[in-house]
């Protein structure tokens, strides 16, 4: 690691403090990135990863501490950071959905102006896409709206790595693989190594520890707004990383209960478009929808939901609750309090003659706050004052607080830290034992392994059904990939 530290600094943030109201988001964090290294940044949700990224890219002015670019302390701001070659790919997609790929490149690269900018932008993006994701098949004249979520993420990554006059010096990737399947993620990781080999730097934030361990040179662990570990990647293992983050790694101690398939299914659906297998769910089952991202899992969940609820007129008794995956798009009400966000789905249960009973609403809020440990001093605080993981917990509580016996989940754990996940898993198990049925689309193998039964999707249809001990990473991968060449 001595070899790395002798290289010039690209960005150095020292003693950064940032507070949001009473919350200390960063409490004297140091982060130095040198040329030609890939730094992995891990930590709980709410550990301050996003905040320090925002401080480095100029979007946020720290209340204390200093940030220097290339060893020189400069004025702070987005344009200063960009002038020093710092680019950022954010966790939530930040392209303009109404513009084409070329036009988005123009927004990211101010140099693309004057006559003929459109074709130059096209060439730039095309070249970079080809370099990172060979055979991507994205048309640069198509509008972002028309692209799938994985394609959008690919475009955003490519646009950020592209350089017209100068290559970027530091690219910050915040959960870059959250919507990419394993193949694309591997291509990206390979490109990061090449980019770093050519002297660029990358700051990689990911909750997939395997990615961090295999790609980074150095790993920085954050906890409660501070850096708690900063060592070369070879000194870490998955286990030691998790320990450094402050989560006690829990062994999988629970045993699957026997087959719960008895009696009539509570929910069933014939094979989608006449292909593949039919779907059915029984009382108290936890069912996983697996397969590569975007192969019809979300659509199936929506179909299941609509099979019990009219598209036009909401049903009086709700049998099904839905936990959305895209928090900001169709999960939270950003202007409302935490309590209101939690109680919205079950207002009917504790209102008398259409008037909401505030006391019962408050009691419900406090009950769930204790049960799932929503980290807030007051449930009346705005929902946006919570970190992403805690917002997601509120969405879970919203669904579980209803009287619905079936809960559909659309990859709800995207970007949620390990500790929170474990807490939620425990609650899910408890609820399933109580007779609730969970139907869970997940892109993470650990979650799929928690399920009693798994349907694997490929190209919009169910291609395999795995139960009990058959649910292994190997079986799921086999089912998601096999026959791909024939199609």
């Amino acid at each position, binding site marked *: 690691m001595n070899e790395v530290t002798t290289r010039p600094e690209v960005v150095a943030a020292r003693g950064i403090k940032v507070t949001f109201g009473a919350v200390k988001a960063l409490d004297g964090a140091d982060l130095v990135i040198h040329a030609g290294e890939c730094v992995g940044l891990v930590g709980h949700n709410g550990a301050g990863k996003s905040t320090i990224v925002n401080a480095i890219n100029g979007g946020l002015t720290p209340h204390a501490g200093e940030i220097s670019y290339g060893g020189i302390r400069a004025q702070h701001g987005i344009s200063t950071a960009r002038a020093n070659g710092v680019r950022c790919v954010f966790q939530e997609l930040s392209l303009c959905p109404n513009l084409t790929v070329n036009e988005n490149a123009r927004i990211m690269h*101010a140099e693309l102006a004057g006559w003929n900018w459109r074709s130059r932008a096209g060439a730039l993006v095309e070249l970079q896409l080809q370099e990172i994701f060979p055979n991507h098949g994205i048309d640069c004249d198509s509008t972002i709206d028309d692209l799938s979520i994985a394609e959008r993420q690919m475009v955003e990554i490519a646009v950020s790595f592209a350089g017209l006059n100068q290559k970027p010096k530091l690219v910050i990737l915040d959960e870059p693989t959250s919507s990419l399947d394993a193949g694309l993620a591997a291509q990206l990781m390979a490109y990061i190594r090449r980019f770093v080999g050519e002297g660029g730097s990358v700051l990689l934030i990911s909750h997939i520890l395997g990615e961090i361990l295999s790609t980074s040179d150095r790993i920085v662990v954050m906890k409660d707004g501070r850096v708690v570990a900063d060592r070369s990647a070879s000194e870490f293992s998955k286990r030691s990383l998790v320990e450094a983050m402050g989560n006690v790694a829990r062994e999988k101690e629970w045993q699957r209960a026997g087959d719960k398939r008895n009696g009539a299914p509570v929910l069933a659906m014939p094979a989608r478009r006449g292909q593949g297998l039919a779907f059915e769910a029984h009382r108290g089952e936890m069912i996983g929808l697996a397969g590569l991202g975007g192969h019809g899992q979300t659509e199936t969940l929506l179909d299941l939901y609509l099979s019990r609820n009219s598209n036009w007129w909401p049903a009086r008794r709700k049998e099904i609750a839905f936990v959305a995956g895209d928090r900001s798009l169709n999960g939270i009400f950003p202007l409302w309090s935490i309590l209101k966000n939690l109680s919205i789905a079950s207002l009917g249960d504790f209102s008398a003659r259409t008037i909401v009973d505030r006391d019962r609403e408050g009691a419900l809020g406090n009950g769930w706050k204790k049960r799932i440990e929503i980290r807030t001093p007051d449930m009346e605080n705005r929902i946006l004052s919570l970190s992403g993981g805690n917002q997601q917990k509120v969405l879970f509580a919203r669904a579980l607080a209803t009287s619905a016996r079936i809960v559909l989940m659309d990859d709800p754990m995207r970007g949620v830290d390990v500790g929170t996940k474990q807490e939620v898993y425990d609650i899910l198990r408890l609820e399933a034992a109580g007779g609730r049925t969970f139907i869970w689309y997940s892109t993470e193998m650990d979650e799929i392994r928690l399920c009693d039964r798994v349907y694997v999707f490929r190209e919009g249809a169910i291609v395999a059904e795995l139960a009990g001990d058959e649910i292994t990473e190997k079986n799921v991968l086999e089912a998601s990939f096999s026959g791909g060449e024939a199609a």
Partner: protein
Amino acid sequence: MRISTSTIRLVIPAASLALLLAAVFYMQPRAMSYTGLNLLFNLAVPIALATVAQMLIMAVNDLDLSMGAFVSFCACVTATFLQASPAIGVLIFLGAIAAYAVIGIVIHVRELPSIVVTLGMSFVWGGLAVLMLPSPGGEAPGWARWLMTSRPPFVPMAIVASIVIALVTHFAIMRSSAGVLIRGVGGNVRSVERAGWSVIRIRAGTYALAGFFAVLSGIALVGLTTSADANIALRYTLLSIAGVILGGGEFVGGKVSPIGAVIGALTLTLAGSFLSFLRISPDWQIGAQGAILIVVLGLRLLLNRLEKREKSR
């Protein structure tokens, strides 16, 4: 070949305009002439300009409820100051455009709803217009009159003007690199901000450009009517919004189409004549115009659904 979304967006407004035009020609074959077309579309030119102005504001996710009052104000300035002492008239217009830029800045910096701010401004513009022309009157400048009543060979002025407006604004908003920034602000402000652009400047520039087109609309209107009145263009507020929507634009998300907006303005103008030809009493005309709008928008919704289904297949 794959048809792009923006092309599909244009199909419905263009088809409805063609359909309406065919219906008018069927009922009044004499309209199928140079003079007939000119008469049908004459009043569309100022509406088209106002629609383009509104479209710019809508491209940055705002709405301008002062459009009608502002165009009336510009018409009054054209009929008085611009005619009597052009230098002062031009100065007033420059001031008005600057005022639009300031409105954009205020809306952005204070995070105010544009509807409220522009609604307030509509009374300011209306008041100024009444101060200038308490009673209908004034006179059109000779050049504006000449421009609007000139008779180019083969194609009437109204059509030529509409095509020019459509092409110029299409280039400025859809093709130029500056237009991308305007639509980008409508699509995702944070992304534009994070790329290091000054959104205040973009918004101010967009508002100023909208003000410029609204000024042109006022001048064009007086060129046609030869005199002005403080209330001459009040209905332009809703007409311009309807024109943008009819032309495939949307209220939020930076989805706009300049060519569609001009076509939308033409369709709205034609709808009025069409209803007159049908001998529908003026009492019912507004309702009937609304019905046409609903039909066209319903068609668009249907097309969007089909497109979505196609995509998911």
